[in-house]
């Protein structure tokens, strides 16, 4: 048996909510892949805890997407029954975990953006988004602190950890430009006070990342050509593999519960 994919309505608010939910779910799934594989027990728990925070945020956002679309879909439908091209997450969050340094640097680059993003979104004219943001903002603050401390520890650690952290930073940097892009339709949401303009976060994001990178004795890469496409559903091959793992059970056993 096999459950086919759903097609969701293409309205700006729904697309926006799903994009934020997809960021949280995909990054949460990536972090959950560390469960049982962490470099030390405390980190195993920390990464799993952060995965839980992110998947929780995704659940709240998918549930809200269900209200916005009003097509009778619940959180599971959006997570398990959309194909890769319907996912609107940033390319950064779908990048494979790699080594611990790569996971930490990915977490730093994303958290330094999403923490002030949620903080600003607390003033959204959309009360549900404002409430979700109020919760997520505190969780992402913990994530940012964790990633910052580890970036410093790895960068300013041994020659080996320094080299790995620098390599991770160099390889992930081309995915940071997409943090500040805005898909068509989002401008109207920003003008209505529902969403916020990511461009306004570029300077604070850069200041946070620079401060951590410098303390970690790492070198900030030069801004070259930036990858993009995730928000429009053009993903790297990694997302398809991730979804095959994430969605397998609901596709093979439709509506399975336990």
């Amino acid at each position, binding site marked *: 048996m096999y459950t086919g994919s759903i097609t969701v309505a293409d309205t700006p608010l729904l697309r926006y909510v799903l994009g934020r939910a997809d960021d949280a779910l995909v990054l949460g799934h990536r972090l959950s892949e560390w469960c049982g594989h962490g470099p030390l027990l405390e980190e195993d*728990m920390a990464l799993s*805890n952060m995965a839980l925070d992110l998947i*929780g945020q995704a659940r*709240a956002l998918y549930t809200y997407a269900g209200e916005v679309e009003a097509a009778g879909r619940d959180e599971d439908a959006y997570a398990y029954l959309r194909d890769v091209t319907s996912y609107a997450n940033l390319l950064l969050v779908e990048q494979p975990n790699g080594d611990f340094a790569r996971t930490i640097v990915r977490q730093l680059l994303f958290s330094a953006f999403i923490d002030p993003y949620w903080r600003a979104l607390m003033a959204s004219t959309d009360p549900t988004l404002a409430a979700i943001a109020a*919760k997520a903002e505190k*969780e992402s*603050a*913990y994530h940012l*602190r964790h990633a910052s401390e580890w970036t410093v520890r790895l960068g300013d650690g041994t020659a080996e950890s320094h080299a790995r952290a620098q390599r991770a930073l160099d390889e992930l940097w081309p995915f940071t430009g997409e943090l500040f892009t805005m898909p068509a339709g989002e401008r109207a949401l920003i003008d209505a006070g529902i969403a916020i303009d990511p461009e306004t976060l570029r300077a604070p994001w850069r200041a946070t990342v620079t401060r951590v990178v410098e303390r970690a004795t790492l070198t900030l890469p030069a801004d070259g050509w930036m990858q993009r496409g995730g928000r429009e559903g053009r993903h790297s091959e990694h997302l398809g593999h991730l979804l095959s793992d994430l969605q397998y059970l609901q596709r093979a056993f439709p509506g399975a519960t336990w």
Partner: protein
Amino acid sequence: MTTAPGDLTALCAEVRRVASTVVDPEIPVISIADLGILREVVVAGDHVEVRITPTYSGCPAMNMIKSELEQAFATAGLAPVQVRLVLSPAWTTDWITETGRRQLHDYGIAPPAPGGDRTALFGTTTVPCPRCGSTDTTQLAAFGSTACKALWRCATCREPFDYFKCH
């Protein structure tokens, strides 16, 4: 059937009393009322609704709390009571009552520092050991046994303990 206003108040109080018997499945000494997640009881005609709010986004206890509430109402003969999740205003650790904070402490969990702002999140707040009261304590791990707790250690009595993180 019409319900007199006095009955309505009594029904509300009864629903609230039954709801308050439900405890947090992770910390079974604190009721959901003292934890601050029982928001309100709304009675309209013969429709009774209990509103609860999630703590941490990813708290897996919410599903269980919802089903335990439904079970408590059924056992008390109050069914059907609808349990609804509300997000706004967002819960913070400041919603925990004084009684709740004491119950956490007596259970061996250091209660969160009051004032869940950013200074409380990351400031130099001292966390007194819930066992011996010493303030000579250090954080071992920011992420502990559940999403809401951090792991701390007391340098005086040498015991590790959970700290309910500010949120």
